[in-house]
């Protein structure tokens, strides 16, 4: 069954057209990630799904039912916010049980669900603390626990990790992945961090300026991007682009090469001047100039390359992508 389906959803704020003809479906138990640059409408889309904003047109179905006019609390969703949004006047237990009390669930059900969620997120010792007495990571876990206890048909996450530091972010990311496995719930997750998107998603939705650019599994998007935007957005370091005319005069196309597709080759076609070298231990990122174009090469292992040297780089032609002037992918 489909957990969520959107058909030609539009949203405008006054004259500003923020979401344009969004078509999307989320299968039951699927983990779907929305990615896109800042301001592309990810949060707005999530809020439209949650019912916090009304769609200007289009149809939203959750678990088969049209919910366009259903208030947020009755949509069978739970949401985790970037800023945690815990109730300051309630302790952790109070935060977790508020929605259940509003739904008039029996006490024993509430107690059982709180115990289960607290165990899942290691919050048993903090149930009587107030949000102001918790660390950032703990607050975010409380926010997630508050969503879990509702046993919703659909989980919505709006950049839940962006306020955490790098190490905590990685841990919480794993925790969310484990939760998804344990609960089997359908999840929609917004981020602008492409690592989060690649590692968590069953399906990624790439948005730009309120439009869906491409939908697919992480590897589909990585291997077969439909256009230059998607190709450049996924993968780190980002894909290199340069006019194909640099190598074969007269060619009007744009060539895209992933940094990991490049290698040092004395007979290679790309002649570059190294401007910077990043030694990461496992990998070496070489940032170089080819005429006016910056080229990044990701070399496996450690390489002693000094800045300012001239190098030739080669690549497997089968791993090159080609785009036309508008950015659409060719062949």
């Amino acid at each position: 069954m489909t957990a969520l389906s959107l058909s030609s959803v539009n949203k405008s704020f006054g004259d500003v057209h923020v979401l344009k003809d969004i078509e999307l479906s989320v299968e039951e138990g699927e983990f779907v990630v929305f990615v896109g640059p800042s301001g592309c409408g990810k949060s707005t889309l999530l809020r439209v799904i949650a019912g916090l904003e009304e769609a200007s047109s289009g149809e939203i179905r959750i678990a088969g039912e049209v919910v366009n006019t259903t208030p947020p609390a009755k949509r069978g969703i739970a949401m985790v916010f970037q800023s945690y949004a815990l109730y300051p006047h309630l302790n952790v237990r109070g935060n977790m049980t508020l929605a259940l009390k509003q739904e008039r669930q029996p006490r024993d059900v509430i107690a059982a669900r709180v115990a289960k969620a607290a165990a899942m997120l290691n919050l048993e010792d903090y149930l009587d603390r107030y949000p102001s007495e918790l660390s950032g990571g703990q607050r975010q876990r409380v926010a997630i626990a508050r969503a879990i206890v509702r046993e919703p048909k659909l989980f919505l996450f709006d950049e839940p990790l962006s306020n955490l530091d790098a190490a905590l972010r990685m841990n919480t990311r794993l925790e969310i992945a484990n939760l998804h496995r344990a609960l089997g719930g359908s999840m929609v997750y917004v981020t602008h961090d492409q690592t989060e998107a690649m590692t968590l998603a069953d399906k990624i939705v790439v948005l730009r300026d309120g439009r869906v650019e491409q939908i697919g599994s992480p590897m589909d998007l990585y291997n077969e991007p439909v256009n230059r935007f998607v190709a450049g957005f996924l993968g780190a370091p980002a894909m290199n682009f340069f006019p194909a005319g640099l190598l074969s005069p007269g060619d009007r196309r744009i060539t895209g090469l992933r940094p990991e597709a490049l290698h040092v080759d004395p007979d290679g076609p790309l002649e570059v001047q190294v401007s910077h070298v990043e030694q990461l231990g496992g990998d070496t990122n070489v940032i170089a100039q080819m005429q006016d174009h910056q080229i990044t090469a990701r070399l496996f292992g450690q390489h002693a390359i000094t800045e300012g040297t001239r190098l030739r780089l080669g690549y497997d032609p089968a791993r090159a992508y080609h785009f036309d002037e508008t950015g659409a992918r060719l062949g």
Partner: protein
Amino acid sequence: MNKARSKPVNALAMHGALILYTLIALFPVFIILINSFKSRRAIFREPMALPDAESFSLIGYQTVLKQGDFLLYFQNSMIVTVGSLFFILLFGAMAAYALSEYRFRGNTLMALYLALGIMIPIRIGTVAILEMMVATGLVNTLWALILVYTAQGLPLAVFILSEFMRQVSDDLKNAGRIDGLSEYTIFFRLVLPLVRPAMATVAVFNMIPIWNDLWFPLILAPAEETKTLTLGSQVFIGQFVTDWNAVLSALSMAILPVLVLYVIFSRQLIRGITSGAVK
């Protein structure tokens, strides 16, 4: 305070200035208090002296408590002040929430219209207000005063509170909506506690002018049973003779309740509330 950053000299100068200011500000109050406990002659002979065995006298307090219905005046002032503050805060906060939270046609216009009230003194409309009160039969009731003071306080209250409410996290309100809280619960349980310091500021700003006002009590409610403290104290100030003992005693007693209210509100101002709700 951060020890490492504050130099002792600076701290000394700062505290010196603050103490000096406190002394200057409190001096008149102090003079009123000590003189209210002195005999009439002592007040005029040595106004700065503390009351001693010879000059000590409670005659002022006795006059005040005997004359007129001082306790009733007191009660009237209290009812008017607390009632007006309650309505200013309630309606001000509700209007501010509506203006800051909901997008509706005419929102900006409405906010500007309300802000206009800050610039136009309500006393300009005294005659019209009096006519209205006569027409509605509210003259010589405490409601007349409460309504006027509420109207007088609302513009600034709405203005200040809507600024603060705009800063309350949207995520928090949205979390409440998803959890099934009604808009009223979100307003009273989530938003109001977070703007408590601003509410206290508004309360303190409005309290003292209302408590001290002479104009509207004189015009709208001069009857014996609706007199406020300020109006009631006027009987001691005659055209030819003024009973200074009574005036000073009445003033001293009038300070007390304002002080209590102030302490209540300023605790709210100072209390570092609800950090950790968001972020």
